[in-house]
């Protein structure tokens, strides 16, 4: 295992002593005047999975072609023998408008043994000053996800689809968000992946007739890939919040009640492997709004039928690669709390589902 890791480390660029990272970076830039260093933020990937190193390295390369940043790749192996930290630097360059070469810098750290405090120290010591800190915390939110660390974060990326204990980890996330010193915004990739379905669903109700039928829906149907139940529940929680539905606490299964007394059931079905949420339909008397994506298809099929009138169209589906997902989030205006506002409801749903 350790030997395999050792082999991949060369992809990280030039190894430098940990205490000399800044000086070596300066040398790197001074040696080539044709290159321009660009940076808009600090973007750090935190992972405890050594096997993910090559993938993360590629991902940073892809991401920096869209978002100039100081990229940091942190591999933490808490079970290592004696604490040992190593560092690498690299320039990720691309042409800019065909004229000059613009580069982001990548710093990579591998930490074996040691503890959360050491990880924090390495990150804090190498931030590009005054620029925001964006962290992608991969895998489970472990006890290393500590207040001293997250209180410095501006934007946090997670992927709840990878979590081993969603209920506990959402609780941890909610606590972190409510912490007195934390002001970070959360982006759950599992939620981002269904963005195109949500936009397409909104498209169904651009139609005034369909919109008037919307309050009468009786059922939400969602088909998800195996292991992606949480993504489906997130989507259901969002629909419920948007429509002002309340979770029916008395019911054993997930079911919602409307303000006027009616109820809305949730039907989850497991589909094929592939796209995490594959089909979403809202149905009610004389209304069916359905958004579906075939596996590996670049389009979403959107069908709305109401009052005997049916309309169907294809829309481009969203991107799927992790780099593109993150990039699309970084490009969007931030400051919305839609996701985190849904978490309390989601946790109650998780307890039933």
């Amino acid at each position: 295992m350790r030997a395999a890791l050792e082999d991949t480390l060369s992809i990280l660029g030039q190894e430098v002593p940990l205490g000399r990272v800044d000086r070596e970076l300066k040398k790197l830039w001074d040696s080539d005047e044709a290159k321009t260093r660009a940076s808009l933020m600090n973007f750090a990937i935190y992972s405890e999975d050594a096997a993910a190193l090559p993938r993360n390295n590629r991902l940073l390369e892809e991401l920096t072609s869209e978002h100039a940043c100081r990229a940091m790749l942190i591999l933490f192996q808490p079970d290592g023998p004696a604490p040992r930290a190593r560092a690498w630097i690299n320039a990720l360059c691309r042409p800019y408008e065909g004229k000059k070469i613009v580069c982001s810098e990548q710093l990579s750290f591998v930490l074996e043994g040691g503890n959360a405090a050491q990880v924090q120290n390495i990150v804090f010591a190498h931030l590009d000053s005054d620029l925001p800190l964006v962290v992608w915390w991969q895998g489970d939110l472990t006890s290393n996800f500590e207040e001293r660390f997250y209180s410095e974060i501006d934007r946090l990326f997670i992927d709840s689809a990878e979590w081993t204990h969603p209920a506990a980890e959402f609780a941890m996330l909610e606590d972190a968000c409510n912490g007195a010193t934390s002001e970070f915004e959360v982006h759950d990739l599992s939620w981002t992946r269904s963005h195109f379905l949500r936009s397409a669903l909104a498209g169904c109700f651009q139609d005034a007739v369909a919109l008037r039928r919307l309050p009468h829906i009786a059922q939400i149907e969602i088909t998800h890939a195996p292991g992606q139940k949480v993504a489906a529940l997130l989507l259901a929680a969002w629909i419920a919040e948007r429509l002002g539905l309340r979770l029916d606490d008395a019911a054993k299964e997930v079911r919602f009640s409307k303000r006027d007394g009616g109820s809305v059931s949730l039907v989850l079905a497991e589909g094929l492997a592939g796209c995490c949420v594959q089909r979403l339909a809202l149905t009610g008397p004389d209304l069916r709004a359905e958004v579906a994506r075939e596996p590996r298809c670049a389009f979403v099929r959107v069908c709305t039928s109401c009052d005997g009138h049916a309309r169907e169209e294809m829309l481009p589906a969203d991107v799927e690669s992790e780099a593109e997902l993150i990039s699309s989030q970084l490009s969007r205006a931030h400051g919305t709390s839609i996701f985190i506002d849904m978490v309390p409801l989601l946790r109650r749903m998780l307890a039933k589902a």
Partner: protein
Amino acid sequence: MPELENPFQDTQMQQHRAQPCTLVIFGATGDLTHRKLIPALYNIAVSGDLPPQFKVVGFARREKTDEVFRAELCEANAKHSRQGHNEQMWGSFAQSIHYHRSEFEDVDGYRALAGLLDAFDKERGTVANRLFYLASAPEYFDQIMEQLRKAGLNNGIGDRWARVVCEKPFGKDLKTARHLNEVVNETFDEGDTYRIDHYLGKETAQNIMVLRFANSLFEPNWNSRYIDHVQITCAENLGMEGGRGGYYDTAGALRDMVQNHLFQLLTLVAMEPPTDLSADSVRDEKVKVIRALRRLTGPEAVGQNVVRAQYTAGSVDGVPRVGYRQEERVNPESRTECYVALRLFVDTWRWQGVPFYIRVGKQLPKKATEISVHFKKPPQVPFATSVMIPDSENTLVIRIQPDEGISLRILCKQPGQALFVQPVKMDFHYSNSFGKASPEAYERLLLDAMAGDATLFARRDEVENAWRFIDEIEKAWHESPSPPPMCEYPAGSWGPKAADEMLARDGREWRRL
């Protein structure tokens, strides 16, 4: 019944969302459509921002099928698209493109167009909004408007809108602009009229307001107490390539660039903070600046404050260039200026006594559009014994194109024993921070027109007030018995001496670009 809100809408997180519509382009086989409009629409589609069920109808007079039209646009898109050309994406986008053959003056052609748009609506199962884009020469605007009206296309159906986008040039003087405005406004409400000024679609132009009003560092100093003068330069290192002399010789630098683009930049620099960011609040403030421009009436005032010139033979980047009058499709006795420099005053409380120097010209040494704000020098008392570099005021430079960015010149002590003060530059480049190219101006403007946001479009009173100012200069040049001279400068130089002298009389000089 009141309109219901779509509860799912806010997932679409842009500030404003283009509304479902059909776009009709008049003059769709032309250069503008191929180089700018279609690539802009394609790039909007790639970003996923095109509204659902969107359609484009190209209107022109040559016979061709949808397939031929799409194939021509495909080739143009592959050449001009900012984010490259992907066959699959193009294939899906191209399905929305259609061609409609008709003469601009033929009302039956518009009736047939109405039929086509209705058929699209049937196919969609809902009525769409309609956006008419006039990408034709302005002499056709009258006809197009009249026929649109006759065919009843100028009114949206039910609660849907119908809007019109007009390309530049919007008139060639106040009279023609007024006429165009009357014709357009007989057909569409002013609120549905979008006059393009593509400079306003540029990222850096939009950033001027943010820079001024979102940074407490600048706004308190943004007035005659602290600012000595402002310069706006729009330099081009090209001449009349590609046969553009034909149109240019009928317009000239003042009409082609100053009346619209440079006045837009000037208003953004000089305007008061708007009460809110609605299109009308912003444009109310901009129009006040144009109205406050001190008028230049008569040949004497124009002679003192405006310099016009033509280039003579010279060389740019080592390549020999002919003089303006020797250019293809230019009258050999032309009296049209291809360089103009102006000394302007905005007579408001904020700008009392602060000159705004504007220059624009062809065949200058480099291509650059920049605004520079020159601050007053400090009293210098504590440095009485130091050696100051003479030209050493703080200067804030806003680079509009190319290499968009902002730089600030400040004074620093040069390392060493003695107190030498040196100007240094703090430089922000869009490329260094954002590292990716901004959307094309036309992408932003098309999306805004589809979303109903007119902030970045010129309003009728802006256009007319700008022409009123420009007309007096044109009158002094072309109608007075003793007009101010037409100066000359060799191609590849920074313009005529008279322009340098105009600033020298004020004890100032043009900034080195």
